């Protein structure tokens, strides 16, 4: 890369050569690739180390006394499901290989359906929400999450063994249940507010 002349250059030429060499080096450094392929997929290991994020205080219930038995039961169902889903997406005692994945997903589906059945009655009582209200926002969030879940399910039909797609579906289900849980809380608070 150097343009250095070995046959005794003058001082001025030496300085020029050094500058050229430095400039050439800088060009080579600047041209180095900015990205490097990651050999193995590091995400599963990273995901295992991610702790759940605490929800902001604004999402907390107005009062502990307003927390009805129905919502508490639903929250327990969600917590149980979340724990199970975390076990599925993390390192299970028997690592999922090949044909095990669909079976695990099926069992997750059963739990998910159960939690849905617990939660849905708590959210439909609010009726059709008016646009711009919190409930309308919840409904919109639900629609987005459910649309995404439908898309993932379609993809899973083509590639049922995909660990990535299964993980995505699990995450979306978790998210849907969280939204439902918030809806139930909201409905609860509204009812409690109107009766006090």
């Amino acid at each position, binding site marked *: *890369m*150097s343009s*250095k002349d070995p046959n005794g250059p003058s001082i001025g030429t030496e300085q020029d050569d050094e500058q050229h*060499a*430095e*400039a050439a*080096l*800088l*060009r*080579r*450094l*600047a*041209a*180095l*690739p*900015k*990205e*490097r*392929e*990651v*050999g*193995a997929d*590091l*995400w599963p*290991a*990273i*995901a295992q*180390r*991610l*702790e*759940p*994020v605490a*929800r*902001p205080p604004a999402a907390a219930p107005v009062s502990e006394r307003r927390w009805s038995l129905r919502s508490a039961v639903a929250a327990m169902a969600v917590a149980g499901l979340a724990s199970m889903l975390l076990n599925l997406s993390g390192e299970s005692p028997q690592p999922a290989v090949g044909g095990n994945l669909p079976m695990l997903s099926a069992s997750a589906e059963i739990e998910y359906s159960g939690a849905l059945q617990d939660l849905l009655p708590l959210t439909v009582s609010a009726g059709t929400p008016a646009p711009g209200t919190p409930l309308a926002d919840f409904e919109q969030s639900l629609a987005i999450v459910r649309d995404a879940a439908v898309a993932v399910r379609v993809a899973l039909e083509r590639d049922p063994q995909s660990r990535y797609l299964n993980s*995505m579906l699990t*995450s*979306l289900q978790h*998210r849907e249940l969280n939204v439902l849980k918030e809806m139930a809380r909201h409905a609860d608070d509204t009812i409690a507010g109107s009766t006090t």
Partner: protein
Amino acid sequence: MRAVAERDNSLEGLAPNHESGQESDQVSGQQSGPSKAEKPDDKPDKKLAVETGEGLEGESEQQADDAELVDAARAGDQLAFERLYRRHQGRTMALCWRMCGGNDTLAAELVQDAFVRAWQKLHLFRGEAKFTTWLHRLTVNVVLSDRRIRMRQVAREQPLESAPEAGMTPSLGLDADLEAAIAKLPERARTVLVLHDVEGMKHTEIAELADMAVGTSKAQLHRARRLLREWLNE
């Protein structure tokens, strides 16, 4: 498993400023305004952006996408965070790999640590800078913290001078000679060279991140470039 939470986290809340163009390398006692000789050191980032062809439109689109994903991830959405990871893993890997002297295994561990730390500290990201910039600084911090821990371990076990550079793997990039030469550099010189000449950081940022004086950063850069020129001319 590395204990990320134990590491030095003094820099995560800082908003990086090397993209704002407002920073200079001035510190108290330093010369005001770059001399002609220093000029190549002072504006590496713009040059890099031009030479690597990073389009501004695509960049701003990605920035907007990143902002949405960051918002979702901050609210606890791991799927959104995974998308951020997939989007930025290559660049983070390149940074870790070069900074740790071409050790693939260590670089992969550091990438994991960096993203775990990013998840933990995401609430501190104020959105004043690009997510990539924030992630980059956080990654540098993770790498340097890891290095300090390793240095202390090595110092307990044997003198630093004889510490082996274990696990170094040959580079496979397009400019393999240069990558190998960078990997051979002394750690501090390599750190400054990678951050300044490859990543486009300013000396003030490097000095802050690497806990060294700005003058030391400049001296290390000079040393690194001189060594590289020597080795590449051989």
